[in-house]
């Protein structure tokens, strides 16, 4: 499976993702510069965290209109897989590839801490190795991670089972106290209806080795690889 890790000016989690894919998963991976438009040889594109273009105007706003993200629309249309974490989630929302928007944390603080996530949808390429109700531990690191969407969009997310993860307690209970940023309905990550584009504020790449304090992030990468091997569609090329 061939991975691409997108690098914008101001991206900071690119090396971490590259490391996990190449050194932990042992999969081919290359960096993709933000001006590139050809993603044809890739199976999965990762939009890492950081502050793309300084997050000027709004977080992810400028990156959401960049050449590589324009190319990403075709890539998604062809069934390519996209994982956006942190700033990557903000970019996917600004680009309209996922619904809603990320706004400033309700607490006004930049939150850099461990969080518990309860799995809401185990039927996506990224979560197939998990089970609904399973609790994952992953760090967050952001100032603008409060998910917002209008009532109609929220109803659609629930009806179509598009919420992937919600912030919860260690026991998997979704509570106000376990919500680190004031996100609507404790939403930490969502997917598109096809289950091929996933955006999340937490950092799976920072929870993929025991030495980093946990390996729950690796479960997502393993889901990805497992589902592709089972499905086989990406291996036939």
């Amino acid at each position: 499976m061939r991975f691409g890790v997108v690098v914008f000016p101001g991206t900071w989690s690119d090396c971490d993702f590259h490391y996990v894919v190449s050194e932990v998963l042992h999969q081919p991976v290359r960096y993709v510069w933000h001006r590139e438009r050809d993603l044809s040889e890739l199976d999965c594109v990762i939009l890492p965290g950081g502050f793309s273009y300084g997050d000027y105007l709004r977080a992810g706003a400028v990156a959401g209109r960049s050449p590589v993200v324009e190319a990403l629309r075709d890539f998604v249309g062809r069934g390519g897989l996209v994982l956006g974490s942190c700033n990557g989630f903000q970019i996917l929302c600004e680009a309209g590839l996922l619904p809603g928007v990320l706004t400033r944390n309700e607490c006004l603080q930049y939150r850099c801490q461990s969080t518990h996530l309860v799995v809401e949808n185990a039927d996506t390429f990224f979560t197939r190795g998990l089970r609904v109700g399973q609790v994952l531990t992953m760090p967050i690191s952001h100032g603008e991670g409060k998910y917002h969407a209008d009532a109609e969009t929220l109803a659609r997310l629930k009806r179509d089972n598009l919420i992937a993860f919600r912030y919860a307690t260690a026991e998997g209970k979704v509570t106000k106290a376990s919500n680190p940023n004031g996100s609507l309905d404790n939403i930490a990550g969502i997917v598109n209806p096809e289950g091929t584009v996933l955006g999340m504020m937490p950092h799976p790449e920072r929870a993929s080795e025991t030495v980093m304090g946990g390996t729950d992030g690796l479960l997502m990468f393993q889901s990805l690889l497992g589902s592709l091997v089972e499905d086989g569609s990406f291996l036939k090329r």
Partner: protein
Amino acid sequence: MKVRVLVRLKPGIMDVQGAAVKRALAGLGFSEIADLRIGKVIELELDDATPDARARVGEMCRQLLANPILEDFTIETLADLAPREVAR
């Protein structure tokens, strides 16, 4: 041609920055503020020959300057702008 775009959070969207600034002002003794919301001012200078300048700027707002989920925008051309009070 000078154009000024005002981007504001829609009514009903919680403005946490505005709430924090309101608290800060209250701390300075300005307790009379019932509500305070923060927006953005974007000033553009367009080529005078730009046809349909207002429509073009509207398109800029829809494509990049404002996020329609969160924000409303208003467009003022120079003719709309009253002389500004000079801050002291």
